[in-house]
């Protein structure tokens, strides 16, 4: 056994000195770069957050612009080449007509009415990154308003463009995840830190609290709390309240990680040194201890984020989370809640694709980070 263990000791390289001088965070980063799937996932996550940041720019039509005459239009085909073979992406305008037997609107593309795609086209106006008013969008049409002819992912029952709504939903859902995790993290570091630092009765009490919270089924609890939000609250108020409700439960796992690290660090010399130097508890925690296990925290956060996102999506899907006119992934999926809706407009389920991709990416990323932060743990 001892021989086998010996064999596991890594190569002694010339970079030994470099390794010895590296901080914990640098070490983690070096190890992380070796996980290819995790790195790709990290890029995917960044891509999605950029999408969230530029949601309005990427949207083509106003997400709230409704028109019964555009109800349930299926996703549209983009034609890349013009008749003469030149590269000129365009779409056909649609002609809607009511089927007199089923009374459903059916749409037929009109090949004679070509609308060419245009970059940086004009559309509805919005405030770009909260800085200035503009009406430029990444995509638009050369003539007519996009509301009438551009349906990349089709429309919902009220004739709203699914693509544009998806862009704005991404912003909401991803930001709720981020803010929720920030709140959980604060609670987690505070309670986990106190638990690990002081130990004794306080530790036992906090551990029991965590155990109790974890043994309660969360969804009925969230549902009960979320349902109690007054119906006259504004979108922003509900947004904040939902974030708080979700993070009220979400902090337990983070607290567990933090406490474990604190217990390990409590015995370290540099903490004692800081104590002897008369630093306050809070200063010791945030100035000395947190940086030394930052990589563990980052890993735990990237695993907590997808859980937050799923929670918000689930609550909104049930109609108890964010409510229209707010747009989030859960709100969009609510439109696809029953079989009738999906049977008529299966493209409404497409919203699930980014949800799954983001959650997967976060999980791979978090796994890679966790391995990198603590290869033996």
């Amino acid at each position, binding site marked *: *056994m*001892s021989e086998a263990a*010996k064999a596991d000791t890594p190569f*002694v390289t010339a970079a030994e000195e470099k390794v010895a001088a590296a901080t914990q965070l640098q070490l983690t980063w070096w190890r992380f770069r070796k996980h290819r799937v995790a790195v790709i996932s990290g890029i995917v996550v960044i891509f999605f957050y950029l999408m969230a940041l530029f949601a309005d720019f990427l949207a083509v039509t106003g997400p709230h612009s409704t028109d019964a005459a555009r109800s349930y239009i299926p996703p549209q085909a983009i034609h890349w080449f013009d008749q003469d073979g030149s590269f000129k992406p365009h779409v056909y305008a649609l002609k809607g007509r009511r089927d007199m037997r089923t009374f459903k609107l059916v749409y037929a593309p009109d090949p004679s009415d070509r609308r060419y795609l245009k970059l940086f086209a004009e559309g509805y106006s919005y405030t770009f990154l909260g800085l200035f008013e503009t009406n430029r969008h990444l995509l638009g049409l050369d003539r007519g308003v996009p509301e009438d002819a551009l349906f990349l992912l089709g429309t919902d029952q009220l004739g709203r463009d699914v693509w544009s709504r998806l862009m704005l939903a991404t912003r909401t859902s991803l930001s709720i995840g981020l803010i929720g995790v920030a709140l959980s993290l604060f609670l987690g570091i505070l309670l986990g830190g106190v638990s690990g630092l002081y130990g004794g009765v306080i530790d036992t009490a906090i551990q029991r609290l965590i155990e109790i919270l974890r043994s309660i089924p969360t969804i009925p609890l969230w549902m009960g709390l979320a349902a109690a939000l007054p119906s006259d609250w504004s979108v922003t108020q509900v947004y904040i309240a939902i974030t708080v409700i979700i993070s009220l439960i979400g902090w337990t796992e983070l607290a567990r990680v933090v406490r474990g690290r604190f217990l390990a660090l409590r015995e370290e010399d540099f903490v004692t040194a800081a104590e002897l130097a008369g630093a306050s508890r809070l200063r010791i925690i945030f100035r000395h201890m947190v940086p030394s296990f930052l990589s563990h925290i980052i890993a735990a956060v990237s695993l907590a984020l997808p859980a937050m996102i799923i929670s918000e999506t689930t609550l909104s899907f049930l109609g108890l989370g964010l409510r229209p006119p707010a747009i989030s992934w859960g709100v969009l999926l609510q439109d696809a809640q029953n079989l009738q809706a999906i049977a008529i407009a299966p493209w409404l389920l497409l919203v699930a694709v980014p949800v799954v991709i983001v959650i997967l990416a976060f999980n791979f990323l978090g796994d890679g980070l966790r391995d990198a932060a603590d290869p033996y743990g």
Partner: protein
Amino acid sequence: MAEPILSVRNLQTYFRPDEGIVRAVDGASFDLYPGRTLGIVGESGCGKSVTARSILRIVDRPGKVEGGEIVLRRHDGRLVDIVGLDESGAEMRDIRGGEIGYVFQEPMSSLSAFYTIGNQVMEAIHLHKRVTEKEARDRAIELLHLVGIPRPEQRVDSYSFELSGGLRQRVMIALALAAEPRILIADEPTTALDVTTQAQILELIRKIQEERKLAVVLITHDMGVIAEMADAVSVMYLGKIVESGPVDEIFHAPKHPYTQALLRSIPSVLAEPRSRLATISGSIPHPYARPPGCTFNPRCGNFMPGKCDQAPPPATTLSADHEVRCFLYGEGVAT
């Protein structure tokens, strides 16, 4: 002397992890005779445990027996090369426990905590003998009695964690002897035990060896244990046997500088009080970075530049069964 029961020739067991290759055992050879004890001695990491595990073909991955032969004379007189056997085949499993019993280093964790010790001993009996449940149980109690466990009728139903370290090691010996093997490999059987218990366990092994005419392979880093127990000694350094011979010759006239250094480092009650204990200078080289030539050369007091760091020294026969691998000897005899 009689025919050897086990004969190991040029055994090579290598570990091939992703980073490279570790030659844990690199050309070890020795013979084992019924009723006698062979001691294999060396620092930790020298390959002695891997050698022992290679004989049973239970080397952990990524380790593998890659060359040489291990010829076992089976109870019906057939000669079998263990290296040629299928690692998980019926014959190999029959040999494990049936012909060769194995006592491990860590009695604390070598028994499962989920089954009674009786269950584990009876399992070993059932694997090699056709007996009824009742007979197996009686035998298990008998074995526990044999290895000196008090009140075996009750202990048979206890769990390993209810026993002391010494008792656990006795159970391990009972386990190894369950199917009446003719060879016992004891891999650092006393390392994890306190001194008085060590002596008792060694005494037990010797007693059983006499009763059953067992051939014993005793693996240890402790020269004192070797002196007390072994008939012959093989000294291992970095996967190679650097010196082997009868215990008296090795102790009284050690030839290899490494053997000499090992003997100097034994603490002695007769030594001058507070005198400094001799140590071997330097430490074991990294397994991926073995020195060229004689692997002991960086730590050797008799290092000869241009010779010891060029090619590995060949084996030199000093007397009938005393061999050494060192350039200090046999100039002109070998090469």
